[in-house]
């Protein structure tokens, strides 16, 4: 979009060389003013305009109005144009296109009439008779002269003609100029990769990666990444554990570049960081635990399709850029900004592949139920991320059940193995119901509430069977039981020992989403970590662009 300075604004100052080795300076503009004429030699509309500028110069010759041409070409091509139109005013060479970029027009010719103090009196780009007539009228008025008859009924000029694209918009040039323009907004320390060092090896040697190569975060790439959000680069997104250091939008963008994100993924990464860095999610604990937990990111809403977050076949697998890089960006942010590194604060005994990346979409179109984010209080049209502290996906295999009741039982029994079969009253689990299984539930009119109830029903065991014993010393420990289940000695009462205890403390601890390919009667679950407010709870945040 054009950023050509409008009337009333102050135009940028500049000082450019000319073809003779001199300088054309536009720091101060004396009365009555200066007319700037930006052109390039191979532009028909510039050829149409140049003679008109010359006629205006002739008409106002005695007024003191200065004319300055600004060429986007090299000296030889500039000379071609100057000779073609017999231009006699100073010509500044803007071959680096910095001034063109500062003036921000999309097309040449661009004309800018300046009064004293570089105040813009009139400006336009391309060609339109009305714009030209207006500018001539302003110029004459500024000079105290009569409007010269350049635009008349018989002038033969077209009503309008589009200009030619400014050279500043050529893709390679635009990127270079964007860096020049945007460099000021980037406050991160610049690191020069030593001569002859391979940037990929350099980054790995600095400990800035996750074991896989990372994309070098150059200024160009980071600026392009920042185009993915409307937020200011200096906005603080979150304080990243374990060091609780502030991560600005710029730092998120740098790490998103390194992970391989496209700019349109950036808002998702930002929202995921915001969600993960809440007290409820407790990223510090998720990171520091010896357990398997890692942030699992679920994307819901329209953005899922817009940026192609895989929610179908192989959704937890390889091959999908959004899935692969969004989760990775969050992990890199924790590592690089938060200081959370494996073997240091990250003390996971075994880890899991999801600690590289774990991001999936929900297959809302094949779900018989309202999607995860709607269930969690957002409208269907809102794009969200939900972060969940989860293990790796584990299989629920049931090709035989044809009723929801039977399938629900299968799911319950599989879920009972989460962490340990005897460990009940666990925290959250993320249940991913495949489309084929979802169809079975739909056929029987099974709601999410029905499925949760069925899971709790089939997993309910007498507390007596769940306590640690000689057969298996692991189990549900009395310390975590409600006080009224225990006697004065702190041990469960006889009544409590007979009480059926389902796997999950609350039905709502079972988070349900639909995802995966349309072939395969397999679902999955991702076990959670420590439960409730004393551990980690799933958090959903709106994705704001």
């Amino acid at each position, binding site marked *: 979009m054009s950023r050509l300075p409008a009337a009333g604004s102050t135009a940028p100052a500049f000082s450019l060389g000319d073809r003779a080795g001199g300088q054309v300076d536009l720091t101060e503009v004396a009365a009555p003013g200066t007319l700037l004429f930006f052109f390039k030699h191979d532009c028909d509309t510039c050829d149409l305009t140049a003679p008109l500028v010359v006629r205006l110069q002739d008409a106002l010759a005695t007024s003191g109005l200065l004319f300055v041409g600004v060429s986007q070409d090299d000296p030889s091509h500039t000379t071609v144009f100057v000779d073609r139109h017999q231009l006699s005013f100073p010509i500044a060479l803007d071959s680096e296109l910095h001034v063109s970029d500062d003036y921000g027009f999309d097309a040449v010719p661009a004309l800018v009439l300046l009064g004293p103090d570089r105040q813009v009196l009139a400006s336009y780009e391309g060609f339109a008779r009305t714009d030209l007539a207006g500018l001539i009228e302003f110029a004459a008025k500024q000079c105290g002269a009569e409007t010269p008859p350049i635009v008349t009924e018989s002038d033969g000029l077209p009503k309008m003609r589009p200009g030619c694209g400014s050279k500043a918009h050529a893709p390679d040039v635009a990127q270079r100029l964007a860096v020049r323009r945007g460099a000021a907004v*980037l406050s*991160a*320390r*610049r*690191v*020069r*990769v*030593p*001569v*002859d*060092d*391979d*940037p990929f090896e350099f*980054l790995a040697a600095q400990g*800035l990666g996750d074991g896989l190569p990372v994309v*070098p*975060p*150059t*200024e160009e790439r*980071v600026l392009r990444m920042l185009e993915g959000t409307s937020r200011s680069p200096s906005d603080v997104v979150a304080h*990243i554990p374990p*060091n609780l*250091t*502030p*991560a600005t939008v*710029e*730092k998120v963008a*740098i*790490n998103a570049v*390194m992970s391989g994100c496209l700019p349109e993924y950036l808002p998702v990464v930002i929202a995921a960081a915001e969600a993960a860095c809440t007290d409820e999610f*407790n990223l*510090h*604990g998720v990171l520091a*635990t010896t357990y398997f937990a890692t942030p699992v990111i679920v994307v819901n809403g329209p953005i899922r399709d817009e940026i192609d977050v895989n929610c179908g076949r192989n959704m937890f697998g390889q091959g999908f850029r959004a899935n692969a890089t969004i989760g990775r960006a969050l992990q*890199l942010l924790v590592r*690089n*900004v*938060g*200081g959370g590194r494996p073997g240091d604060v990250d003390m996971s005994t075994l880890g899991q592949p999801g600690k590289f990346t774990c991001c999936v979409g929900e297959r809302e179109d094949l779900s018989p139920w309202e999607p995860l984010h709607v269930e969690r209080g957002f409208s269907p049209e809102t794009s969200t991320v939900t972060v969940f502290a989860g293990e790796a996906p584990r299989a629920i295999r049931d090709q035989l059940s044809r009723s929801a009741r039977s399938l629900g039982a299968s799911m319950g029994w599989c879920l009972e193995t989460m962490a340990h079969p005897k460990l009940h009253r666990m925290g959250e689990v993320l249940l991913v119901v495949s489309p084929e299984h979802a169809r079975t539930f739909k056929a029987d009119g099974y709601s999410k509430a029905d499925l949760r109830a069925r899971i709790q029903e089939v997993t309910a065991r007498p507390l007596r069977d769940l306590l640690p014993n000689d057969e298996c010393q692991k189990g549900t*420990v009395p*310390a975590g039981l409600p006080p009224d289940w225990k006697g004065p000695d702190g041990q469960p009462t006889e009544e409590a020992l007979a009480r059926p205890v389902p796997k999950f403390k609350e039905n709502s601890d079972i988070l349900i989403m639909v995802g995966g390919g349309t072939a395969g009667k397999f679902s999955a679950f991702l076990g959670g*970590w*420590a439960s409730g407010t*004393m*551990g*980690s709870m799933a958090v959903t945040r709106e994705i704001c662009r």
Partner: protein
Amino acid sequence: MSGSLVILDPTAEQEPIGRRPATRPDQLTGPLGLIDIAKPRGDVFLNEVERLLRADLPDLEIIRLRKPTYTKPSPSDLRAKVASRCRAVIQALAD
């Protein structure tokens, strides 16, 4: 490879403040804090530690402290209590 590549620092650009661990006491003179981080059976371990300490050092003042949860860093009031009241601490990880 070009030697002129400039990249942006992805880290927090903060230098950690170097802190030396507190000087280890030559002998236990108390008050001694026994901190249970709230993992299962942390109390079992600390009860045994306390029993042994009391047997050997009957005059030692022992303060039992407990984190609300092992999943989060110690809250500031607990840290303040340790700093102001304890000469030494033993923390139980348990499980």
